[in-house]
């Protein structure tokens, strides 16, 4: 390839160095959200609604205030009553008023666990005692949890002012349907009428939680002069700053947010729950306030992603060409509008080139926690339905499932179902990687089944800032504004070292607080290695230009005659054969004489993120006695563009698979008749443990993204898209019947086995 000819070989990108924050993280030194304390801090705690839907008639805090050690009690009346306004900055746009009402309920509690008041006290015991003495008078209202009942005309209304957007005719009455999305191409009805083979099915999924092991935590201080300090674990310190400023009605410049190490987020830490409350308590008490959620709080009041009801119909000709598709997606948004159904509609058919389709999505509010982004938000849910239907279609046509997908695959130049034209995608290569794998050709044992599914995610770019500061000895500090959630410090250091031509251990990557580095959008959408990486590389290139200019002056040659190679300036001027190369260290040592400190900062809005495709292959075994399903072998192939640090790319893929397998087999929010969550703990909300899983094989396909200096594409989100259907399709193969509802827990599987036997 010509590309390898004119690009220098890579020395660092593509290798597997030890991460720069590694020693801190294996010794317990790394400080996460709850690990930081401020002098004189109080304990903050939050009182949560015991009802799924209730009017807050009154809140009497007088007895609670009398508890010794209690320093402040706040309710919604301590926050400004905000108007509705769309706010960018999270993983998805949010409504400012809804954000604020989710942080603290005003007139109504909209789900079990919704915050209604908060206290700050000198001790945990005093705070608990105060919570017990706050008297809230509720008028309990009828509630609705599931998406279809919430859409019914006679459903209990969550918001009196919610009118459906996106309908042909303006909605005249309020409802729980916040929005309808619709995307139609060609003539789907006509094409169905002419189709030789059709399949059709209804699929459902339950709400599941991101399940990060670190509960949300923050400590915040509001000083006498109005300056605020926040330390918190989130996916974006700038997001926390914006949201706190807007929710509390204060200036951005008055808030400084320091990002703690983050103990997992997966999208769930792309919004605020505690930070504005801690700040308001600090203002009211005059002390710093620390709030740490319990695991139960995390389940009841944060995350999850949507439960759904979906309908998919596919039409094809006998040779396997898909001629028509209909996809209908109904998603729970939780207490406020904003489920990921829009992204689900866009991704649902993104892997397929289909002439006629209609995709309809419904965003529906329910008396459950407001959903938060969860890794490729919406895409795994839609893929569960579409990829299950594809499996049925392959069976009906008698076609190999990969051959069917290859026949209908999008390619470079295909206009995607969601609009743009694909370029530089590696989908066919990824399909081929699984088709040609030893795994795909291996035989299955008794009671085993094999499933294939594919998945797509856009990946995003966006706004990022990076600074590269050179030390007097030629070492470098790279400052970025993105929390390191899965090893991104390592990839930042590697890209800087590769560009500068220095060993990776000469580069120290750090993550700045909001007062020390320019703005960056949060870590999410698989954007950091792509967009922030681009800023790092450009800042390093700016440093190199500066170094070349300084050297040109020293040598009295033109800039063109100074090249930067392997970490040193070299003279190419034939008239000056005596000029010895100058290393970065040598140039740094005399920087005072050549113009002062060497550093550069770049802020950009990265465009051209390359979309990612994954193809997964799952083998599982069913215990016919218990219905228990065990995944026995798993291979995930993915187009990653270029793996900067391959071990962390593999890790992203393996982690996404594990979450997807949990979603498919076990995880679900379970509610009782009063609308109270019954399983808000890890014992009953069963996530995969080490003994549940086999080794997870990965195949990294590298079709470079020309928009990135090293060809990287986002990798974090694609791997959670296919597993739900890969597992469901494998189970279909093993037991001979399709279970279209998640989770595929033992009782459900047993029932399917029994019904087959009858």
């Amino acid at each position, binding site marked *: 390839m010509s590309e390898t000819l004119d690009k220098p070989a890579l020395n660092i990108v593509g290798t597997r160095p030890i991460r720069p924050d590694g020693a801190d993280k294996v010794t*317990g030194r790394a*400080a996460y959200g709850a690990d930081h304390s401020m002098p004189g801090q109080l304990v903050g705690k939050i009182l949560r609604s015991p009802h799924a839907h209730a009017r807050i008639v009154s809140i009497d805090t007088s007895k609670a205030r009398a508890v010794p050690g209690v320093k402040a009690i706040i309710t919604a009346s301590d926050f400004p009553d905000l108007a509705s306004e769309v706010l960018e900055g999270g993983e998805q746009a949010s409504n400012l008023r809804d954000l604020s009402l989710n942080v603290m309920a005003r007139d109504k509690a909209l789900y079990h666990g919704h915050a209604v008041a908060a206290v700050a006290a000198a001790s945990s015991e005093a705070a608990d005692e105060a919570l017990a003495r706050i008297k809230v008078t509720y008028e309990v209202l009828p509630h609705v949890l599931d998406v279809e009942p919430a859409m019914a005309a006679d459903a209990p209304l969550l918001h009196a002012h919610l009118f459906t957007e996106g309908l042909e005719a303006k909605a005249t009455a309020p409802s729980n349907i916040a929005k309808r999305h619709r995307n139609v191409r060609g003539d789907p009805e006509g094409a169905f009428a002419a189709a030789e083979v059709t399949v059709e099915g209804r699929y459902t999924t339950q709400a599941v939680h991101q399940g990060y092991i670190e509960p949300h935590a923050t400590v915040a201080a509001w000083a006498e002069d109005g300056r605020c300090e926040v330390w918190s674990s989130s996916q974006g310190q700038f997001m926390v700053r914006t949201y706190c400023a807007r929710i509390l009605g204060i200036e951005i410049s008055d808030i400084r947010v320091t990002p703690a190490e983050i103990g997992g987020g997966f999208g769930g830490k792309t919004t605020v729950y505690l930070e504005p409350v801690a700040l308001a308590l600090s203002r009211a008490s005059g002390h710093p306030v620390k709030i740490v959620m319990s695991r139960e709080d995390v389940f009841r009041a944060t995350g999850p992603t949507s439960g759904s009801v979906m309908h998919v119909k596919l039409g094809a000709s006998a040779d396997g060409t898909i001629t028509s598709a209909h996809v209908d997606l109904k998603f729970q948004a939780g207490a406020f509008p904003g489920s990921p159904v829009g992204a689900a509609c866009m991704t649902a058919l993104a892997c397929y080139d289909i002439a006629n389709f209609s995709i309809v999505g419904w965003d529906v509010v329910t008396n459950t926690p407001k959903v938060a982004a969860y890794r490729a938000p919406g895409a795994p849910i839609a893929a569960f339905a579409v990829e299950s239907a594809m499996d049925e279609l392959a069976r009906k046509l008698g076609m190999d499932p990969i051959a069917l997908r290859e026949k209908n695959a999008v390619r470079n130049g295909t206009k995607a179902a969601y609009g743009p034209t694909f370029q530089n995608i590696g989908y066919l290569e990824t399909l081929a990687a699984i088709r040609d794998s030893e795994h795909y050709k291996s035989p299955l044992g008794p009671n085993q089944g094999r499933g294939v599914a594919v998945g797509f995610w856009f990946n995003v770019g966006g706004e990022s800032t990076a600074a590269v500061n050179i030390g007097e000895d030629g070492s470098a500090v790279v400052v970025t504004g993105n929390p390191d959630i899965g090893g991104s410090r390592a990839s930042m250091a590697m890209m800087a070292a590769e560009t500068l031509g220095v060993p990776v251990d000469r580069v120290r990557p750090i993550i700045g607080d909001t007062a020390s580095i320019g703005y960056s959008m949060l870590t999410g959408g698989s954007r950091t290695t792509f967009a922030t990486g681009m800023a790092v590389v450009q800042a390093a290139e700016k440093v190199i230009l500066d170094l070349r200019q300084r050297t040109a002056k020293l040598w009295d040659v033109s800039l063109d005659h100074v090249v930067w190679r392997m970490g040193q300036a070299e003279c190419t001027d034939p008239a000056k054969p005596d000029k010895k190369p100058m290393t970065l260290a040598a140039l740094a040592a005399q920087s005072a004489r050549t113009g002062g400190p060497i550093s550069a900062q770049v802020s950009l809005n990265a465009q051209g993120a390359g979309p990612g495709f994954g193809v997964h292959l799952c083998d599982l075994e069913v215990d016919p006695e218990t219905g228990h399903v065990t995944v026995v072998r798993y291979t995930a192939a993915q187009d990653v563009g270029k793996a900067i640090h391959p071990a962390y790319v593999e890790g992203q893929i393996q982690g996404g698979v594990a979450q997807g397998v949990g979603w498919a087999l076990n995880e679900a929010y379970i509610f009782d008749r009063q609308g109270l969550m019954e399983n808000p703990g890890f014992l009953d909300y069963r996530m995969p443990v080490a003994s549940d899983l086999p080794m997870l094989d990965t195949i990294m396909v590298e079709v470079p993204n020309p928009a990135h200096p090293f060809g990287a594409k986002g990798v974090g989100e694609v791997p959670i898209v296919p597993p739900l259907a890969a597992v469901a399709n494998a189970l279909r193969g093993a037991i001979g019947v399709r279970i279209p509802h998640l989770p595929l827990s033992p009782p459900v599987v047993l029932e399917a086995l029994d019904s087959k036997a009858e």
Partner: protein
Amino acid sequence: MSKTHVTTTVNGDTAEFLASPGMTLLDALRDELGLTGAKEGCGSGDCGACSVMLDGRLVCSCLVLAPEVEGRRVETIEGMAQGGQLHPLQQKFLEHAALQCGFCTPGLLVASKALLDANPDPTETEARYWLAGNLCRCTGYDKIIRAVMDAAAELRQERTA
């Protein structure tokens, strides 16, 4: 509510603190002794992030009441690296990229060390079952298990050498 004076040994050194009623060992380590390496992921014994050794036995420190450690021996992640040298398990976790966010890592390292102390030559299945009490949401366990098996092999070699 009176507090209880507790004297114990933490990572080989004597430690004293005042325990309020209901205080767990995890709270004492984190809030009284400033050892924040053990994490609280659940507070109910279901995630293993708070794993420590108590008299040589692996426990969830969130389930141990602080006064129970009076006169006993506690070992935490902070005591694993010795003399500025990482323990082979710590080193192998880094080499295998067995951590992403790293929040589960202290607990997993303590639990893995307990495994290798009890069984220097575990099978993959034995390692998976031993570590089943330690949740990791980031890695899918693949690289963790590889790191543990690799460290076990290295420790066996060290022993015979």
